[in-house]
């Protein structure tokens, strides 16, 4: 009787042990570390460096290229602002694709941070009658104007307020960022954003290895995972290095202007002080730092 019992318990124990061994082998240590990783904003400098090093290794393994991932913080005395000349924009969507390449946006399923709306000149700025899927031989079309919309980098961002886990926040230089490792994917921020600036990875994102941009920022264009939200960061990996965002550089008609709002001699300040400027959905008190203006 007793013997039987012990044999049974032996069998039970061994199956339990092998099961847990299998479970452990199934997920390696790195995955466990990643799972237990804390919110970016409470990480120490050392933790940040370690995480970034392991990310660079991981990306190298996956894409077979050298990567540079930065975690450069905001500079003192800088508040980024953006201005877009509605009288110049021709709706060519070059910015859309430059942005996608620079920021490693998933090609299939397709994610695009900039959406260009075609609007009727007769109606003015009227979202209900705008068209996102315009597709003529040649732009601009007679009787239409174009309003590219991306993250408006609000001073009073409704998306940040609603996030249940503080996975998104406004940096001191005014850029709203997302910690992709902390986002739970509830998409409350997408419901709250009045500009459709937030995009969700509904499936596994996919960027071909030969097209991947290896110059990355942790809070910006590093590869995202399935089930997290992403958005425009004014090309944080470029702007914090003193470069223009990719959409500014690519624009063939010079409709896009970018600079430091706190610098009285900057071009952006000149535009705000001398041109007719508007922001989208002003009545919502989001206080965008993305201004639309009429250059002529």
């Amino acid at each position, binding site marked *: 009787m007793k013997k039987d019992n012990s044999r049974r318990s032996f069998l039970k124990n061994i199956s339990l042990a092998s099961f847990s061994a299998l479970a452990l082998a199934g997920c390696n240590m790195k995955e466990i570390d990643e799972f237990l990783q804390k919110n970016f904003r409470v990480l120490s400098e050392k933790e940040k460096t370690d995480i970034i090093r392991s990310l660079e290794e991981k990306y190298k393994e996956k894409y077979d290229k050298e990567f540079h991932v930065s975690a450069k913080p905001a500079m003192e005395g800088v508040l980024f602002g953006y201005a877009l000349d509605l009288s110049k924009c021709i709706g060519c969507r070059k910015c859309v694709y430059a942005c996608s390449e620079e920021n490693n946006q998933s090609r299939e399923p397709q994610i695009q941070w900039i959406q260009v709306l075609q609007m009727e000149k007769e109606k003015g700025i009227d979202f209900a009658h*705008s068209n996102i899927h315009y597709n003529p031989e040649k732009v601009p079309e007679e009787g239409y104007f174009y309003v590219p919309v991306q993250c408006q980098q609000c001073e009073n961002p409704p998306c940040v307020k609603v996030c249940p886990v503080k996975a998104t926040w406004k940096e001191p230089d005014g850029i709203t960022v997302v910690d992709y490792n902390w986002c*739970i994917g509830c998409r409350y921020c997408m419901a709250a954003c009045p500009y459709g600036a937030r995009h969700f990875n509904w499936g596994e994102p996919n960027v071909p290895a030969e097209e991947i941009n290896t110059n990355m920022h942790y809070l910006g264009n590093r590869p995202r995972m399935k*089930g997290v939200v992403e958005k425009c960061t004014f090309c944080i990996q470029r702007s914090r290095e003193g470069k223009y965002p990719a959409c500014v550089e690519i624009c063939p008609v010079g409709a896009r202007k970018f600079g430091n709002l706190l610098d009285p001699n900057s071009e952006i300040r000149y535009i705000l002080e001398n041109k007719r400027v508007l922001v989208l959905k002003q009545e919502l008190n989001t206080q965008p730092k993305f201004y639309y203006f009429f250059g002529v």
Partner: protein
Amino acid sequence: MNFIRFLKGSIRLVLHGTKLYYAWLFFLAILIIWGGFGYANQLQNGLITTNMRDSVSWAFYIGNFTFLVGIAAAAIMLVIPAYIYNWNPIKEIVIFGELLAVCAVIMSVAFIVVDIGNPLRFWHMLPLIGTMNFPYSMLSWDFFFLMAYLLINLIVVIHLLYSVFYKRDYNRKMVLAIVFISIPMAVGIHTVTAFLYNALPARPFWNSALLAPRFLASAFCSGPAILLILFQILRKITNFEIKDEAIWKIAELMVYAMFIYLFFTIAELFKEFYSDTEHILYWKYLLFGIGDNNEIVIYSWSSIIMGFIAFILLLIPKTRKNFVTLNIGAVLIYASVYVEKGIALIIPGFTPDVLGQIYVYTPSMTEIRTAVMIFSLGFLLFTFLVKIAIAIIFEDYNIDVINQKGEEKGQRNRF
């Protein structure tokens, strides 16, 4: 030790039953498996298997969540009339109401879990180990309220059943105190859930102060409908005594709730259509469609028509007091509120989207299968809990029975 015996007794109850009971379990099991495979597909490939996209980023899942919070809230609010009108078996009404509330809360949380992109990161939301955005995010409030509500309902229900099981008097003071806390909490969970949508100026369709009152009114239509049917079944198969008058009173209260809901909705419609601002687009999409896009019109009108028929059936005393028409009315209003919360509340909030574009959403097969899985699991849990409660309360299934059985078994073993 005592509690373990209580649990063992409960498990024994769940495992034994009539043929009809097993058939019902088998039916639920098939649905759970069929739905489970749909959900497994979503887990593997991501939410891309749903029909949600950036334009309509919340949909059927979050609608189900909202509906179930309403059910959970209304189940407890029924205690008020039971107390005021002195329907005799108040203890039983409280127990079955709380059981329904417990199941509905668990199901509603399950709908959140299937809706989020990274369910394993759920712990990020917890205080202390995560970084909960309290008090700013309404979602963190909702989480708190739902958990607290679940906990207090579980305490009351377990305490009551446990006491009866051991043939002791339950702690009347404590139970009353908790029930009286849980009533405002019930109002609270549904209000907070309405606030989740309410204060997003980006979505004019929800940005109306009437949203929370409308939520409560509609919950008071759908929640009692389930209990009304459950009470009739209990009356048939157990010695649970509830007078016809009490059931008719529930139906009458549902009519008041429907009337209030109707009034709120008409007030909302008047304001929107008479002001005729750009915000009217969302209502237009819901009721008539915009251009060729009228895919959700069938949902909204089926909900309206079912609601109206139920309203008439429960309003006229003759049909209210006829149990056939009464039950038809109860089923119709339940279905009406389900479609209203599941589709008609959420989808127009996102269509047209914030940039004026129209993405036509209807639930995908994966979403339907996942919902079927959660509902069947919920029904399974509710069946188990109700079965335990029936045996303990009405069939004198108590500790003596367990001891007796234990003795018999022991004697048999000795021979």
